[in-house]
C-alpha cells in the first residue's frame, strides 16, 4: 500500500486533513469521520455481527484517534493508523465480553517458555530492546519487503507476491504453496531463497541483529 511519506501536505490530502484536525477545525473532523467510518464499521462488524456494538467500537476508535493524535506520525498512512486503533478497541471489547482470552506470557512450565532462538542460545534479557529499536528493525525490514513488492508489481510478477504472501503472511509450507499457485516446489524454494537473501543483505548493511529475525535463516 502506498505510504504517506511525502512531507508536503498539499500533495497528501490525509496529511492536510490531520493538520486541520490538529488545529481544531470541526469541518475537518466531520470530513475524516465521513471518509473512514464505513470501512471501520465493516471491519468491526465482520467480527461482532451486531450493528449497535460495532458502532460503539467505531465511536471509541474515533475518540482513540483524537486522544492519540499527538503520537500520530503523518508519514504513516491514516487508514492503517485508524484500522490499528479499531483493532485495539475491538480486542478490548471482546476481552470484556469474555470472547477473547488474555494470553499468558509463558507456557506455564516454570521456565521462560521456549521462545529462545534455535541454535543461538540467547535468552530474553540479552535481546530485550527498547521499543524504539524494535521499531527501527521492523521499519528496515518493511522497507526491504516493500521495495521487492514494488519491483514485482512493476514487472507484473504477481506470482512471486502470491508466493511470499502464502509463505510468510499465511504461513503455508513450500509444497502447499506450489500446489496452490501452480509452481514447482523448486521454484517456490528458489523464490524464497532470493527473497530472504535480499532481506539478509539489508539487515547486515544496516547493522541490525540477525537474531531477531529467525525466519531469515530458515531453509
Amino acid at each position: 500500500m502506498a505510504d504517506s511519506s511525502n512531507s508536503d501536505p498539499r500533495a497528501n490530502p490525509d496529511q492536510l486533513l490531520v493538520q486541520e484536525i490538529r488545529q481544531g477545525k470541526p469541518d475537518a473532523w466531520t470530513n475524516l469521520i465521513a471518509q473512514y467510518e464505513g470501512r471501520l464499521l465493516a471491519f468491526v462488524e465482520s467480527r461482532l455481527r451486531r450493528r449497535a456494538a460495532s458502532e460503539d467500537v467505531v465511536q471509541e476508535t474515533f475518540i482513540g484517534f483524537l486522544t492519540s493524535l499527538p503520537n500520530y506520525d503523518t508519514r504513516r498512512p491514516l487508514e492503517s493508523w485508524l484500522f490499528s486503533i479499531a483493532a485495539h478497541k475491538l480486542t478490548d471489547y471482546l476481552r470484556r465480553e469474555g470472547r477473547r482470552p488474555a494470553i499468558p506470557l509463558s507456557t506455564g512450565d516454570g521456565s521462560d517458555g521456549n521462545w529462545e532462538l534455535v541454535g543461538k542460545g540467547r535468552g530474553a534479557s540479552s535481546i530485550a530492546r527498547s521499543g524504539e529499536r524494535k521499531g527501527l528493525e521492523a521499519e528496515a525490514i518493511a522497507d526491504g519487503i516493500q521495495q521487492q513488492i514494488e519491483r514485482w508489481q512493476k514487472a507484473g510478477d504477481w506470482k512471486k507476491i502470491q508466493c511470499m504472501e502464502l509463505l510468510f503472511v499465511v504461513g503455508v509450507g513450500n509444497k502447499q504453496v506450489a500446489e496452490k499457485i501452480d509452481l514447482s516446489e523448486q521454484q517456490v524454494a528458489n523464490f524464497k531463497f532470493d527473497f530472504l537473501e535480499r532481506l539478509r543483505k539489508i539487515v547486515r548493511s544496516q547493522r541490525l541483529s540477525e537474531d531477531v529475525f529467525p525466519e531469515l535463516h530458515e531453509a
Partner: protein
Amino acid sequence: MSQHFSDADLEAYLDESLSSDRMADVEAALRDESGLADQLATIAGRRDAGVHSLGAIWRRQRLSCPTREQLGSFLLGVLDPDHSAYLQFHIDEIGCRYCNASLEDLREQSAQAAATDTQTRRRKYFQSSAGYLSADD
C-alpha cells in the same frame, strides 16, 4: 475436529488482523485445545522478547495491500486481468481483513449512490410531470 493454525495465523490473531472466520475458528479451538493456548503463549512471549516475524510486519504495514483507488477500479472491473486476479487472491486466499472491509464499504457506497440516483431521477420525473396531474371531474 482439531485444526492446524500456523504461527503466522496466530500472530495475526494476536493483532486482530486474521480474517473474521479464521478468528472465530481460533477462538473456538482455544476453548478446547490446551496445546493451542501454549502455542499462542509461546508466540506472545517471543514477541515480547523482541523477536520479529516477517508476516506480522507485512500484515501490520499492509505491504501488499492495494490502494483504495485500486480497490475501486477492481470493483468497476477496469484493472488489467492479471492485477485483478492478484487482488482477488489477496482478498479471498489471503483473506486480508482490511481490504475486505474497505471493499465492503465501497460496495455499500456504490449501492447508496445508485439509490440516491434513483431517488433523484424519480423526483425529476415527478416534478416535471406533476403539473399535468388533474383530478377526474
